[in-house]
């Protein structure tokens, strides 16, 4: 079996009296594409925040490639090869598209700030390499023509794509995508899903995907986890999930009544 990248066991997150996530368990192996779904307020984003150390879970343990993440800060999580995008787009708005990607690639450069101040040969080599790599990534997402525009000025769909490019620039093994298709129209969404499938192959990535668009998740995920009120109520293949009565009441059922 392939390598275990992420292992969360009994992760619980409480805010005061509210239990946002209750005993969350997840094992993610390299190359997997898993969907995390659930109604609004089910605790999906809180899960992401726990996994990436933005929140410190109240109890439970998380291991990334065998390393316990409890004492780690979010930037160290990124160095372990796990990265994320944000539901409420958090780009560096006043930096250019290219700079957004360059910053994410910094952890893989070998030059120091002294090199940059003295403009040593190493500075030029490393920065050129970084830039080349960033432009390649931007090209995959058809953003290379906008490299010198301000990120905050991009149309919404492009901002979402740029978030993914920026995350990829950290050279992750595992990427957490928080509603990457939110606010996109049908054809944009389809486009995005094809790209996600493609980068997953090309970069040998494991993907954990939060998504609201049920059809989309069903279409590309091999395994789906359903969260409701912070508790995992179902886990399985898309077909299993679709026929699970618990899921239908908690989620699909609720949608049908709309």
């Amino acid at each position, binding site marked *: 079996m392939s390598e275990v990248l992420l292992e969360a066991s009994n992760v619980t997150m409480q805010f005061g009296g509210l239990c946002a996530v209750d005993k969350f368990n997840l094992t993610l192996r390299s190359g997997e594409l898993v969907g995390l779904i659930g109604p609004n307020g089910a605790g999906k984003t809180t899960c992401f925040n726990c996994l990436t150390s*933005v929140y410190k879970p109240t109890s439970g343990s998380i291991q990334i490639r065998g390393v316990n993440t409890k004492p780690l800060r*979010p*930037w160290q999580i*990124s160095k372990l090869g796990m*990265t994320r995008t944000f539901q409420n787009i958090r780009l560096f708005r006043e930096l250019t598209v290219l700079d957004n990607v360059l910053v*994410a690639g910094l952890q893989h450069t070998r030059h*120091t700030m002294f090199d*940059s101040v003295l403009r040593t040969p190493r500075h030029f080599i490393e920065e050129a390499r970084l830039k080349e790599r960033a432009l390649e990534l931007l090209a995959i997402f058809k953003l290379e023509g906008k490299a010198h525009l301000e990120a905050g000025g991009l149309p919404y769909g492009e901002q979402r794509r740029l978030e993914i490019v920026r995350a990829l620039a950290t050279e992750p093994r595992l990427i957490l995508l928080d509603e990457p298709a939110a606010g996109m129209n049908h054809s944009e969404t389809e486009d995005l899903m094809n790209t996600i499938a493609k980068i997953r192959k090309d970069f040998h990535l494991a993907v954990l995907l939060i998504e609201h668009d049920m059809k989309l998740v069903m279409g590309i995920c091999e395994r789906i986890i359903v969260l409701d009120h912070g508790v995992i109520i179902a886990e399985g293949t898309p077909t299993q999930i679709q026929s699970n009565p618990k899921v239908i009441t908690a989620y699909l059922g609720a949608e049908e009544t709309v």
Partner: protein
Amino acid sequence: MAALTDQTARFNTLKSLPAPVVAMMALIGLGVLFDNFTNAYTQFVMVLILTNVVLATSLNLVNGFTGQFSLGHAGFMAVGAYTSAWLVTRPELGALPDFLKFLLLPIGGGLLAAVAGYIVGLPSLRLRGDYLAIVTLGFGEIIRVALLNSDSLGGARGMYGIPSTEAVPALGLTAFSAQFAVASVWAVITFVTLWRIVHSAKGRAFLSVREDEIAAEAMGINITQTKVRAFVISAFFAGVGGSLFAHSVKYLNPSTFTFTKSVDIIIMIVLGGMGSLTGSVIAAVIITILPEMVLRELQQLTGIDLRMVIYSLLLILFMILRPSGILGRLEATDLWKMTLGRRKAEDRKVEGQRVEGKA
């Protein structure tokens, strides 16, 4: 597979050498030129301009580029000034040629100020915005009170008769032009260092912290380290500025380095644009000349000190009418490129979008 060959990289390194040297020589030349037809007072103001350039650009790294808000720059400046004034009297330094000694003294002041910056930066990191502002203000005041209570540094009386550079006949420099040369060298070093930091991918880490700490951290940026670095670098150059200041006014007193002094420097970066180094330089020149040359006349006429009244009014008006300052986050070179770009038909569209993006 490097995108750049070693040879090209080495060539680039060589190419980046002349500009700072030329800038230094030009400034030193300016000093020599002005030497003949200016009085002592104008000469003092000229050195003060360069000192303020050092102080303003360095504060901009923390307040403009890293998005933190320090109100304690005067404290770091004080550390540098006192250190330098103390060092200069040490017999151990007597062996050095006079000019070289004064050229190197700012390093001493800068290093101790950098240590202070590290001490301030470390605990301040958990705080944001106005809390950080008030804590840095507090640190600045603590430094001042400590100076007031240190008898070996003159306490409340201060330090008098601090030595300054003397003429260097071998290089054709008078006392003033030698002093101006030291200030020129350091002003250029400060500006070039900061410019190269913020204009490299490495330095974009500072800007990413300004833009969004949580996202920066998720992208592998150690934000604690980045903020501490900003504080340390900024404090180092504040110390350098303090050292230049000490040897040009030749008299130090703890009351020089109050909160008001910090605000003076803040006014420069606000006016010039937080996040614009060239803006800071322009503002430092204006803000130094304005009170010394123009307001002084006004004060002699009216008998009241209008300097701070006008400054504070400027500060308020700028914040309400043009909060981004003269240049905003653009550099003077960006404006130049944009004008060039407009002339070229093929660039017109791209640049237009860029301007839209800024607005």
